[in-house]
Every structure is written in C-alpha cells, then in structure tokens.
C-alpha cells in the first residue's frame, strides 16, 4: 500500500511538471498568446476555487453559496498588504489566505448548526455582507475599485497554487480526517454515534475550504488591473458552485475539468457578444443533461482510459 501510494505520488508530480513544461513551451514559442495566457491564469484560479469548494460541498456535503466572499477577503487583504505594507507577494498570499480562513472560522462556528437550504441562504447572506463592507470601506476604495496592486501573479504561481490545492484536498480526503468528513455527509447521526466529532470536522473542512478560496483571491487581486467588489457577488459564488455540481460532488477530477471547461467556454463565446450568456446557459443545461442521462453515462463507460488518466492527475 505504501509503495503503491508513493509511486502514485511520484507519477502525479512528474505529470504536474510535464503539464507545466508544455505550457511553458507554449508561452515561450508564442503558440499560446498573451490573451490565452490570461485565460489560463483564470482557469488556474477557478480550479483552486472549485476544488476547495468541493471539500465543503462535495465531501462535507454542506451546500454553501459564499465562496466568493472568502475569495474577496483573500483578494483585498493581500492586495492592501502589497500596496501599503509592501510585503513580499508570497507572504501577502499566505496572510490573505489565513484571513479568509479566520473569517471562515468566525462564520462557520455559528452557521454550521444549520443544514441544507438554510445554510445555503445564510452563506449567501455572508457573501453579500463581506461585499457590502468592502464597498463601504475607504481603504478598499469602495465600488470604484482598487487600482495599483502590483501584478505579481505569474502563471507559475497560479499553477503551483492549483496543484497544491488539489494535492492537499486529495490528501485530506484519503486520510482518517477525510473519511470523517465524508461520513458527516453520508449520515450525521451515524457519524456522531461512530465517535466522529461532527462539529469539529464540519468547521475544519469549511475553514480549509475558505483558506484556499482566500489564496485564489490573492492570486486574482495580483492579476487583475482593477479590483472591484462587484466581481465577488453571489454570481461568482454560484459560478463556483456550478463547477462543483457539474464536475460531480466529491469528485476532484470532475471539479478540475468543469473549472477548466466553464472558464474557457465563455471566452470562446466572446464573439457572440450579447448572446454569450444565453449560449453559456444552454451549454450548462446540455452538460447537466448529458451528465445524468443514460446516454451520457453509457458514453462515459466507453472511455475507461480517459478516466484512469484523470485519476492519476491528482
């Protein structure tokens, strides 16, 4: 078991390096132009967001709609630290992530007593509270947006963070802690009566999820030219949730693929201008139908090789 796992880890590491090398060659040779490089950065950020939300929603089973709020905390904290305290980029990212995790802890302790729809609504409300606070603060320059954050985010940084997020979430899920988290999703009462401290594991998963959202936020604020609070409204939370749901609850490769697809598709549709969101919606509906229809399931069963490769990717 140990040898097998180490072999898998090494395979994953090699794969991660190879994939990065391909992108790096693409950038230097100009096959991937700067427009697409920008989109790939967003892809990486969205992968981080989707994978981290999957821990709270897919594995822990708590439907939350406030992920963009934690992203906003990370984004603003790290941006302000860069601008005013002139801290190094990596340090601002870490502090931003910790701040988001801390807010996650503050919010999580009271609200994780709620379940289902109620939890969904209250996380949505907290998302809006965070956004409205940012709009009304002077240091964040309100809804006019924050200008002047150094653009430190490189593709390597985004890629590394995404890989680390996937690795951490994967490792947690495949440990005793992960099994405890999943058991809470499966049956809270049974988990409690099997000796699992469900309150602790709910908060743990929620905080880790918020932490990585904050990290993604920090990357975003050092990438985008103008940081506006409107970006972090409930639409963004829904967008991340859609990635998780489409990719499959508790399915890491699924989240990654969905995050990649749902970031690239809107960019491809840019030539449709005002019909863009319409087509995006149709693509989403089609994907959902295909995912759950018999035909779609049969189609996937025919692709065993593809499935194997996805699994190794973690």
């Amino acid at each position: 078991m140990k040898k097998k796992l180490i072999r898998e880890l090494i395979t994953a590491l090699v794969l991660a390096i190879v994939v990065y090398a391909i992108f790096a060659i693409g950038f230097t040779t100009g096959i991937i132009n700067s427009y697409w490089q920008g989109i790939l950065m967003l892809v990486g950020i969205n992968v981080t967001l989707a994978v981290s939300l999957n821990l709270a929603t897919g594995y822990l089973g708590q439907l939350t709609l406030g992920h963009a709020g934690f992203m906003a905390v990370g984004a603003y904290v790290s941006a302000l630290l860069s601008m005013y305290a002139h801290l190094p980029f990596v340090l601002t990212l870490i502090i931003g992530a910790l701040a988001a995790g801390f807010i996650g802890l503050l919010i999580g302790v009271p609200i994780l007593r709620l379940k289902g729809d109620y939890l969904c609504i209250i996380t949505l409300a907290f998302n809006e509270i965070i956004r409205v606070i940012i709009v009304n603060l002077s240091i964040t320059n309100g809804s006019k947006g924050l200008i002047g954050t150094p653009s430190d985010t490189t593709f390597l940084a985004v890629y590394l963070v995404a890989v680390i997020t996937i690795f951490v979430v994967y490792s947690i899920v495949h440990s005793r802690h992960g099994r405890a988290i999943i058991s809470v999703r499966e049956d809270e009462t049974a988990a409690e009566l099997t000796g699992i401290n469900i309150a602790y594991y709910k908060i743990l998963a929620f905080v880790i999820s918020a932490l990585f959202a904050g990290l993604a936020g920090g990357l975003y604020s050092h990438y985008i030219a103008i940081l506006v609070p409107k970006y972090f409204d409930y639409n963004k939370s829904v967008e991340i949730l859609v990635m998780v749901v489409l990719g499959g609850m508790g399915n890491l490769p699924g989240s990654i693929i969905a995050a990649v697809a749902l970031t690239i598709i809107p960019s491809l549709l840019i030539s449709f201008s005002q019909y863009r969101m319409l087509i995006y919606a149709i693509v989403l509906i089609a994907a959902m139908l295909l995912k759950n229809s018999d035909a779609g399931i049969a189609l996937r069963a025919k692709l065993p090789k593809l499935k194997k490769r996805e699994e190794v990717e973690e």
Partner: protein
Amino acid sequence: MSSRKPLLQTKGLGIQFGGLKAVDEFNFSIDNNQLFGLIGPNGAGKTTIFNLLTGVYTPTSGQILLDGKTINHSSPTQITQMGVARTFQNIRLFKDMTVLDNVKVGLHHSHQYSLLASILHTPSYFKGEMAMDEEARSLLRVFDLEKFANVKACNLPYGKQRQLEIARALATSPRLLLLDEPAAGMNPTETAELMETIKVVREKFSVAILLIEHDMKLVMGICEKICVLNFGTVLAFGTPDEIKNNPDVIAAYLGNDA
C-alpha cells in the same frame, strides 16, 4: 445484583416529549460481557432507551451511569468514545463509502495521526493507515465481509449491511454494544446465522450486548436476562424462562383474554 460495579446502570431514567412520557422510571443494569434482551410491543420505548443511552436524547429525569459516572449530558460522540456503540433499526451505513472505509470511520479514534501528517504523508500517516487497514480487514473477516472490502456499502445485500453495521460499531472498540433489531427483515436462516455471529462477537470482543429484538426465538435463545417494556415502563425483568411464563408479559403481547 452483584456487589461489583455494573458496566452501565440507569436510575429512574425517563424522558418526556410534551405530555407524553415515552420512558418512565426505567431502572436496569448490565454487567461486563452480559447479553441482555430488551423486548416489548411496538411503541413501548425501546429505541428511545437506546437514544437516551447513546446521548441522542437528553433524559428529562433520572440518571445514566457508565462505570458509576453519570453520562446524562455527554454528547453522542463522547459516549461512543467512552465505549458504548450501537447499530440502528433502519440501517444507517455510510452508503457511498466502501465497506472497508465504513469500518475505518469506526477506527477513527484508535489510530490517531494529525491533519498535517496526512497532507505531508509522514511516516505516522503510513503507519496509522496501514494499521487501520489491517485492523479493519480483520474485523471484516469476522463477518466474512472481506471479499466485499472495496464494494460500496449500499451495494451490499441486506443481511450483509446489517453485519457491516455491527462491524463498524465494533471498530470503535466498545465495551457495550447496543443492537437495535439486528434480525429485522431477515429470513430464518439469516437469523440463525446472526445468532451465531452475536455469540462469536461477544466471545471474541468481550463486549456486553444489549439487544432489541422482536424475534422471540433469537431473544430467548441467546439472552441471559430480558427486560420487557410496555408503554415506557418496565413490565417484567428476568431470565428467558421467567419471562416466558410471566402472565403480565403474555397479557401485554396477546391481550388480557388470552
């Protein structure tokens, strides 16, 4: 009652839901390694007692003593960690997890390694995981479930799901195991197998077992002592033979004219 301290004891235990006294003045005690049956007509309060003993409900009167210490206000998690495990009337497995992982959840507390260890894959992670794997498999072997180790729990046949639930409960290394209608929905052959299993479990894991069951053959066959409940109060208490011949019990089950 013997002079040594009983494993679990209740004193005047009761719970009231609004105006309804679901359980009232329930006194009993169970010793180490004893096999105790709890029977009674539907709605007598048997499962409510299980819920009280495991901390799902907080009693409105009386006391529950584990090793002589009150556990009235302990959480279900704490009570489980103190050595009381249970199964459920309507099976509550972690359906989307594998059979092996179900048992490993039960082993959560016996092999501890930190969150950081699991992320960094330190030696303690591997040591813990391998020990858990080994222990979970040996538990599954007792129930002849090892060949299903990587099957999702929801795909197991019904009788096997019941057994897996017992295996998961045993994984928490309990001293007292509460079985809520383990034979429900089983055919006579399966029930006979289950009787054997219960005996084996008791010997091998040296646990006390408190059993709710409607199958009289099973209860009378294996329990050393039986407590009969009716309308939340104790109707009779004694050995299987005493219970069989108790006129009150016969009246409760069959009606007064019988």
